[in-house]
């Protein structure tokens, strides 16, 4: 059965990507941040420029004792890291890496699927915040929820603008329709989507919910060992997924200057790493935003900008039709 073999092969590839890319982004964060701050970063593990640092970290995490606080809600506390991680794995299934069905699951509603499933990941952090029986964690969990509620709206609006421009909700279809002039046309949507995505991932400068210097990592305060590692993995997998989605929606996905069909996956990978680099760059350059500034940015800037982008897309579609 060649079909079954193909599916198994694709799933294995996605699992491999899910295991490797977040680690690469994590290692890149160590090194890029270090060099931007005039340091060297990890240099010893593995020999060559500390390439095995995160592998060593993983081994360390796996050896630690699995601690659950006495007052915690045990079941929810243990379930939360899984709920935070699995949605990002599911989103990878619908990311097209090349033309003609080079995607694990070619859903007609791929865009909706991706946005819906990404929203579930946040529930993991809220569960962790509540179940830890820690006031810092509870505060962090509430900030996570408030942040998701504000930033989900501009994110969906910006994505809807792309769907309108392409005339389809399928991620493969959107890449097929993509032309170079989408770059200026959807530029505002690109910025809104990327910023809202960063906020949904709680990456700096939107890391108020986990602010280490005031609420001590918020929802993750009580976590250690493997479960904490899963949360870290979810954060880096989230960066990969956000970069891949942004590349597919706004930057032409697998399209490149030449050899689209053969090298599509390489173009997408390059775009993903370029965007991941920007994510890291933003972390190094911007101070953390205060909670009221976060909410103001979402409601006073991103939502109106996304609505303006929607109007622009609609007008252009009607005029050019």
């Amino acid at each position, binding site marked *: 059965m060649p079909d079954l073999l193909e599916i198994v092969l694709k799933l294995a590839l996605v699992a491999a990507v899910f295991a490797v890319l977040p680690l690469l982004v994590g290692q890149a964060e160590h090194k890029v941040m270090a060099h931007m701050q005039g340091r060297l970063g990890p240099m010893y593990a593995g020999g060559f420029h500390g390439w095995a640092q995160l592998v060593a970290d993983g081994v360390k995490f796996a050896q630690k004792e699995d601690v659950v606080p006495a007052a915690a809600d045990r079941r929810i506390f243990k379930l939360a890291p899984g709920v935070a991680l699995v949605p990002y794995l599911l989103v990878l299934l619908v990311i097209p890496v090349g033309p003609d069905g080079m995607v694990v699951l070619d859903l007609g509603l791929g865009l*909706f699927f991706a946005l*819906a499933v990404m929203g*579930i990941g946040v529930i993991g952090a*809220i569960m962790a915040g509540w179940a830890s029986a820690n006031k810092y964690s509870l505060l962090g969990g*509430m900030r996570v929820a408030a942040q998701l509620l504000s930033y989900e709206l501009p994110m969906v609006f910006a994505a809807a603008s792309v769907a309108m421009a392409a005339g389809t909700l399928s991620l493969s279809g959107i890449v097929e329709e993509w032309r170079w002039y989408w770059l200026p046309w959807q530029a505002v949507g690109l910025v809104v989507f990327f910023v809202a995505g960063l906020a949904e991932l709680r990456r700096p400068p939107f890391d108020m919910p986990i602010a280490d210097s005031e609420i001590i990592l918020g929802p993750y305060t009580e976590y250690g060992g493997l479960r904490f590692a899963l949360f870290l993995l979810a954060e880096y997998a989230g960066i990969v997924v956000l970069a891949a989605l942004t590349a597919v929606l706004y930057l032409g996905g697998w399209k490149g200057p030449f050899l689209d069909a053969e090298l599509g996956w390489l173009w997408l990978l390059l775009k993903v790493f370029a965007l991941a680099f920007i994510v890291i760059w933003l972390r190094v350059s911007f101070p953390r935003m205060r909670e009221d500034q976060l909410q103001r940015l979402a409601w006073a800037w991103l939502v109106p900008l996304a609505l303006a982008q929607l109007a622009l897309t609609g007008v252009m579609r009607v005029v050019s039709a």
Partner: protein
Amino acid sequence: MTGHDVVFLLLGAIAVGAGVLCVTTKQIVHAALWLVVSFGGLAGGYLVLTAEFVAWVQVLIYVGAVVVLLLFGIMLTRAPIGRDPALDSGNRWVALGVALATAALLVTVVIMGFGHAYKEIEPGGGSADTLGAAVFRTWVLPFEVLSVLLLAALVGAIVLSRSDIGEKDD
């Protein structure tokens, strides 16, 4: 019974079971999380019936937004860990009676109305294209009327949340 029927029944059992646990659990946050499972089962049911768009909207709006809002509200007021006997209302037997009566009424109406109206499930029958064409061609007037209702609700929310308009308390 085809494979579809079996999966549909299982998903229905998950949705109903999670719903029962949602109202019987003594921990308020667990109730919200069981609601997530129930909504997930419902979305799966939509998927089996090829209503893909409705299924993903169910996940995006109800799981991604409504439950998060519920959890936020619960955590903002009181969310003790462990059992809370105060969660049991004295009205629970009356509520059970009302729920059973409503369910009986709905099931009877559906079976009497559509009990023998079988319809073949076609792939793509609930895709965004078909749904969009139906909503914006055939049913555009009800759709627009609904939007006026939503607008009224929005205006109401603004009026309620603003303390600087309306009569003064003094």
